[in-house]
């Protein structure tokens, strides 16, 4: 064993925390004065290092430092309250990014296919008309013409549809508008139905309630009468 290898082994042994030299290494240290001195020096260095590390761990904390440390820890804890870990923060940011990216596309797609939200009783009547059960439709109680948006604004109420809204498919919109146009005093509604829905959410859509008591439906030719 040469001195270079012996000193490397001494350092590695002390760094690993071992206290006993191998037989070969012990023989070299005893026979070589230079390596013996190196071993004593390194052993003292590691002993001092370990003692100093232990002393650092047990060093008393100055009282003036405690409030600062406590405030810093509370600050970090409050920040962690929002995002407990980096994965949660990343997932939240990804969700926000996706929402920002895709929400305008959904809105645009909806505007490309103009639809109108109507109170359900109008569709009930339309469904009755479509299925030929005009008696049931006519029996529905007539209601005064009203704009829910205007009524809500006048009452200072946040604009929330009082009845569940329904969607008129774009391909059925023209037919539905023609049907409404035949009704007395409902041409404005028919005109509104032929127009695209407003792009602005806060612009009220004028929708009138339908009254179809005067509507007469005649059975189609060749079909059995009711």
């Amino acid at each position, binding site marked *: 064993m040469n001195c270079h290898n012996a000193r490397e082994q001494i350092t590695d042994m002390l760094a690993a925390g071992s206290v006993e030299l191998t037989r070969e290494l012990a023989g070299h240290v005893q026979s070589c004065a230079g390596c013996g001195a190196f071993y004593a020096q390194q052993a003292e260095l590691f002993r*001092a290092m370990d003692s100093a*590390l*232990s002393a650092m761990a047990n060093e008393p904390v100055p009282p003036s430092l405690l409030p600062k440390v406590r405030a810093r820890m509370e600050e970090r804890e409050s920040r962690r309250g929002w995002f407990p870990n980096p994965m949660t923060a990343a997932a939240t940011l990804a969700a926000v990014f996706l929402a920002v990216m895709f929400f305008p596309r959904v809105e645009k797609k909806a505007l490309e296919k103009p639809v109108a939200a109507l109170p359900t009783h109008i569709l009930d009547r339309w469904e009755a008309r479509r299925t030929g059960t005009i008696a049931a439709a006519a029996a529905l109680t007539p209601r005064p013409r009203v704009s829910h948006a205007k009524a809500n604004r006048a009452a200072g109420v946040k604009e929330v549809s009082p009845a569940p809204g329904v969607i008129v498919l774009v391909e059925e919109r023209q037919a539905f508008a023609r049907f409404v146009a035949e009704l007395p005093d409902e041409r404005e509604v028919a005109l509104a139905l032929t127009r695209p829905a407003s792009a602005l959410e806060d612009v009220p859509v004028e929708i009138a309630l339908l009254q179809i008591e005067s509507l007469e439906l005649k059975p189609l030719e060749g079909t059995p009468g009711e």
Partner: protein
Amino acid sequence: MQELVLVQPGQSIGGTPTRELERSVEELPEKLRLVLLLSALQGYTLEEVSSMLGIPIGTVKSRLFFARKQLAEKLR
């Protein structure tokens, strides 16, 4: 069990000033410094450090070895 020695900041222990030791510890790579602080300073066992950091115990041993070796080279 290592002997605990109370020292004052800047006091020399075995010819190694504590401030120099602190500075040398700070200069260690993050992975090595973390294992050294947990093991040598805080007194956690190798198994506890392995569990806390989620790394094999052999990795803890090797990191502690390289941390002590690099620290000794800085202080030499």
